[in-house]
């Protein structure tokens, strides 16, 4: 049975009187790579933050690997060990070393031994090409290096789904590529990924599907070639013309 990695049905979310998500339906197959784009305030962050319950939705149902997402501690733990997240502002823990950042959750949540957690962390730091920085603090690293550590930190929990919320928008232009390269590598290994980004090059190269959001709705969804060649909605066309030029 080929069950979906993620499925959302009629998911709604409001902040006070403002409805940020309006009855969203979305299915993501295992191993699928999805890029989410759209104007500021359209609800992209809210959508992916509902998946790991950093925001709680008030209507509709979210399933991750067939497990229902909810606010019970058991449900939260189950979801969060399966779903990794990378933030725009890295959010590394500044009081810990790079290595400690990566081993904190495996040791305390997965109850791995320190040695096992460190071995795993070093392996992943190697994959994102910063093993030699393991004993530094985050503030001693460049933005690009910090974001790669953040990716490694999330991967240390061995998630089956990775969420990225504008992972390159806080970076200087010359560091964008090193982070995108790591994400491309991850995509080629078959990780299920939901990526909020305006990096259309990444979308063309790695995405199976591009989703365009506007005012809390999914306005358009399709393979990148189709999405960029003939967008169906006027809003999408306008948006694309703005970010591509």
């Amino acid at each position, binding site marked *: 049975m080929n069950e979906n990695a993620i499925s959302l049905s009629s998911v709604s979310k409001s902040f006070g009187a403002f409805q940020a998500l309006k009855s969203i339906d979305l299915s993501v197959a295992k191993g699928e790579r999805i890029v989410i784009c759209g104007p500021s305030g359209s609800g992209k962050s809210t959508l992916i933050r509902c998946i790991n319950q950093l925001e709680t939705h008030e209507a509709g149902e979210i399933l991750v690997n067939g497990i229902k997402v909810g606010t019970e*501690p058991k449900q939260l733990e189950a979801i969060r060990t399966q779903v990794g997240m990378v933030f725009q502002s890295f*959010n590394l*823990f500044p*009081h810990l070393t790079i290595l400690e950042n990566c081993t*904190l959750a495996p040791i305390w*949540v997965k109850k791995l031994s320190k040695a096992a957690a460190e071995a795993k962390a070093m392996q992943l730091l190697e994959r994102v090409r910063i093993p030699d920085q393991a004993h530094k*603090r985050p503030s*001693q690293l460049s933005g690009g290096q910090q974001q790669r550590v953040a990716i490694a930190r999330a991967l240390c*929990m061995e998630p089956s789904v990775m969420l990225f919320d504008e992972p390159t928008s806080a970076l200087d232009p010359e560091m964008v590529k090193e982070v995108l390269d790591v994400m491309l590598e991850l995509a080629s290994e078959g990780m299920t990924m939901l990526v909020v980004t305006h990096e259309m090059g990444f979308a063309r190269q790695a995405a199976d599907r591009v989703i365009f959001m506007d005012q809390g709705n999914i306005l358009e969804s399709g393979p990148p070639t189709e999405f960029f060649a003939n967008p169906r909605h006027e809003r999408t066309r306008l948006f694309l013309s703005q970010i591509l030029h």
Partner: protein
Amino acid sequence: MQKLSSDAPGWNAVRSLVGSPFNAVLTVIFAVILFLALPPFLTWAVFDAAVFPAVPETCRTAAGACWSFIVAKHSQILFGIYPFDERWRPLLVCTLLIGLLVYSIRPSAWRARLAGFWIVALMLSWGLMRGGFAGLASVSTDNWGGLPVTLLLTVVAIGIGFPTGILLALARRSDLPVIRLLSTLFIELTRALPLLSILFIASIMLPLLVPEDLLPDKFSRAVIALTMFASAYLAEVVRGGLQALPKGQAEAAQALGLSYWQCQLKVILPQAIAVVIPALTNTIIVMIKNTSLVLVIGLFDLISSGKAALADPEWSSPSVEVYLFITAIYFTLCFGFSRFADRLEQRAKGPSHE
């Protein structure tokens, strides 16, 4: 001017010694004060001072300080009205507590078992002071006095007040309205009352309201009052640190699957407390000195027992000497703590230099 100052090596040497013109003025002012005050002080405190033999006659003839009084009465100043023959017990308690305080300064001592050491040390201290078992004469808390009282009040009020303050700070930011309300009420009420009135409530009003056999003794009531007071103030300092942290820290910890308590203990509190170390130090030093207020409810802390010692009619009441002696003890406690806090801050700030 500017050019000259950066070129001339001699001028540079002066500059490095006194810094900016403002600092230079300060330096001169302090130099003058020292020059005027130090010689007469030294004459009084050292050259003209009387020490031995430690009898009243020595002081009558002395032109300077009368340290013989301190030598003769140190036991009464340090241990108050504690029965004379049993004073080895408070001495042992002070040695134990000060020894453990010094031991606790070293970062290598900060392990879970340190908390265990402290609990054992405090229970031992209580037992030794109180007596009434294993052949030790029973000494009621009304007869305790001096340094052990000050040390016990300080260590317990801060040792319990600090963790309680952290819990109160977390509760005040909780998502659960009832917990938030209770914590806010406690903090605001406690802070709205002067410590003196909390102590009076504990010592005078409680006995009127609570039946006698349920009432803890005066010392325990003072401990509770001081602990409440310390926890409310420390809670607000910690809350300041919690508010200074970006929301992304807690979100990243949650996204990794850490539970609420894991997130607080491993990610939030270490950072929140590190940013407020100077404010915490300040509050704790004030609390150390606040313990002296228990004299208003009739407990003999260090200052009260110093005053009591001065009442001896045989001596010429050398109060300046006694208060200097007590000042030196408070200074050692407070200055020692502030150096310790400085080291903590350096450690929290800098990258680890293993």
